[in-house]
């Protein structure tokens, strides 16, 4: 499906929202406003935006944890206000301020997140199973990183989903590092997508800096899943600009990540690449770009104001949260 102008502008706007939102949290942690930690997603926004912008509201999503899912959940329809409020520990946050960094938005198929890398695979099988049982053509999208692919949970989940032809799309955000561990020292092949062959499903490698390439690959996999033809794996080659988490050393094993590598990836910035494409094709003018920038800046400032003005959660709610009625 070829995207029309409105859809292209939506993709671009979501990229800018993800970047500016991420910059806000990084600044917030430096200023002591963020209550827990932050794993910036700057540099890899095209993955989350390309994967999620055109999913349906009732499709299920396990976002990648980088940026605590910002590029994913914003594009899926979640509120930037609630996202920031959670990171600022406020009662209006996505998890009521109880999680500190996990996002929940059940209206948009987002049931939260865990702390253990690789635990996204098994629960996503459950969402895909529910999608199949519901019979409404929903899909589940499970996003993970190169590090997660080292977990045994991936095998159990991909195997079960493939055997049962569940409507699920596995999206790997391969940014080359699992904290300090380079993927080349943790996985014996070049492409994680090769794993798909073992589960009898398509495995595709795409340029994770190209939001259109990500979108097209995911849409094809989503349509396949909706048709009942089972899971697919899409590997998006991407990068993170910043250290693993704010305040952590920016290293590979125990030495600094190569500066040349960082610079080379920054030349392929997903927002600049897409901006150039839209300008070259006459979809957007420089004035349009500025306008989107201003509009997103205003949205981010309003969201941050909302978060900072929101109250902290009442500790009296904690015992009541232990069990559902």
């Amino acid at each position: 499906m070829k995207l029309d102008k409105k859809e292209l502008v939506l993709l671009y706007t979501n990229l800018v929202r993800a970047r500016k939102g991420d910059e806000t949290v990084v600044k917030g942690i430096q200023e002591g406003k963020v209550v827990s930690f932050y794993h910036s997603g700057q540099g890899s926004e095209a993955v989350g935006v390309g994967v999620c912008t055109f999913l349906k509201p009732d499709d299920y999503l396990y976002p990648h944890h980088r940026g605590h899912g910002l590029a994913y959940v914003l594009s899926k329809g979640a509120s930037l206000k609630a996202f920031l409020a959670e990171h600022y520990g406020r009662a209006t946050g996505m998890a009521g301020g109880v999680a500190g960094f996990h996002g929940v938005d059940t209206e948009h198929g987002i049931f939260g997140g865990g702390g253990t890398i690789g635990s996204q695979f098994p629960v996503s099988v459950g969402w895909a199973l529910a999608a199949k049982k519901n019979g409404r053509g929903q899909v589940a999208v499970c996003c993970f990183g190169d590090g997660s692919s080292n977990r045994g949970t991936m095998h159990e989940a991909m195997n079960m989903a493939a055997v049962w032809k569940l409507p699920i799309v596995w999206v790997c955000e391969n940014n080359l590092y699992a904290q300090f561990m380079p993927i080349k020292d943790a996985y014996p092949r070049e492409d994680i997508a090769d794993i798909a062959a073992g589960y009898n499903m398509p495995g595709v490698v795409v340029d994770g800096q190209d939001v259109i390439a990500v979108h097209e690959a995911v849409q094809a996999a989503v349509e396949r899943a909706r048709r009942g033809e089972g899971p697919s794996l899409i590997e998006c080659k991407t990068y993170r600009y910043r250290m693993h988490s704010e305040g952590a050393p920016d290293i590979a094993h125990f030495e600094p990540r190569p500066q040349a590598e960082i610079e080379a990836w920054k030349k392929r910035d997903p927002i600049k690449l897409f901006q150039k494409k839209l300008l070259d094709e006459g979809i957007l003018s420089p004035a349009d770009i500025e306008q989107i920038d201003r509009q997103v800046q205003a949205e981010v400032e309003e969201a941050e104001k909302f978060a900072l003005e929101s109250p902290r959660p009442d500790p009296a709610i904690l015992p009541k949260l232990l069990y559902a009625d």
Partner: protein
Amino acid sequence: MRQLPFVLAINEALREEMQRDDKVFIIGEDVQAGTFRATTGLVQMFGPDRVMDTPLSETAVAGAAIGAAMAGWRPVADFMFADFMWCCADEVFLKAAKWHFIHGGKVNLPVVLFANIGGGARVGPEHSQCPESIVMHTPGLKLVIPSTPYDAKGLMKTAIRDNNPVVYFYHKRLLGLVGDVPEEEYTIPFGVADIKKPGKDVTVVATSYMVQHALKVANELEGKVSIEVVDPRTLEPLDIDTIVASVKKTGRVVLVDEDTKRCSVTAEIGMQIMEKAFDSLDAPIQRVGAANMPIAGGYMEQYVLPQPKDIVTAIETVTGKKLT
């Protein structure tokens, strides 16, 4: 009243709840055949989409059940042996237990985590554990641990209807125990202990198969000492009030559980009795449990697991009388 074996009482509860609610389904390894016969015959009634045989993948089974529960279904995940739940510890202890709470109450996890516990089959440390202490220790998990066919059925029905993750442990030595199970519909609320035998001299709080050991001892000692056997039936929530009321009556307590004695549920219950009924105690609390070592297999098992004679010794200690 109608008599049913323990395992068929569970089977009947599953069948009735699956008939009552289309959202209930069973998922696990070989549940269509039913390794312990708890799920046997259900696939013929409800079909393979509701009695789902899975690949040998405990982690994916747990994830599938927990994920489906979040999305509005009511799965019963069968792990065969409770020991096998350690393969999916993340899903049980980090996901099922915590995700309602940590996500601000915005997601529910109505899932039953169903597993066989206990020794007696002499099959060694990875098929015989009673890991109730670790479950009871974990906030967010309810824990059901029945000792009779009647309780097994009524508590399973309640577990399936609960909107929270419920760990349901059933003991392999109880599978064939026959007892009263009415044909009429009933459920048993969580957090209500049952006095299995009234008495006045010593309170014996016991769980699961140990209730049967305790009743055997109580009957053998009848005439020498009057023993009240209290079965909490659920450890979370725990009906400490019924236990304390019994202690206030008898003044002497023996706590019996098959889990490893160190940090066991009896340590917790004992401390709660100390906090709530210290002045009523006429003797220090005695605990009976498995020795602090892995459960040995073969003929060595009996030297690790608690035996009826250990309960007798404990009763002799709290009463200060030689009873045998």
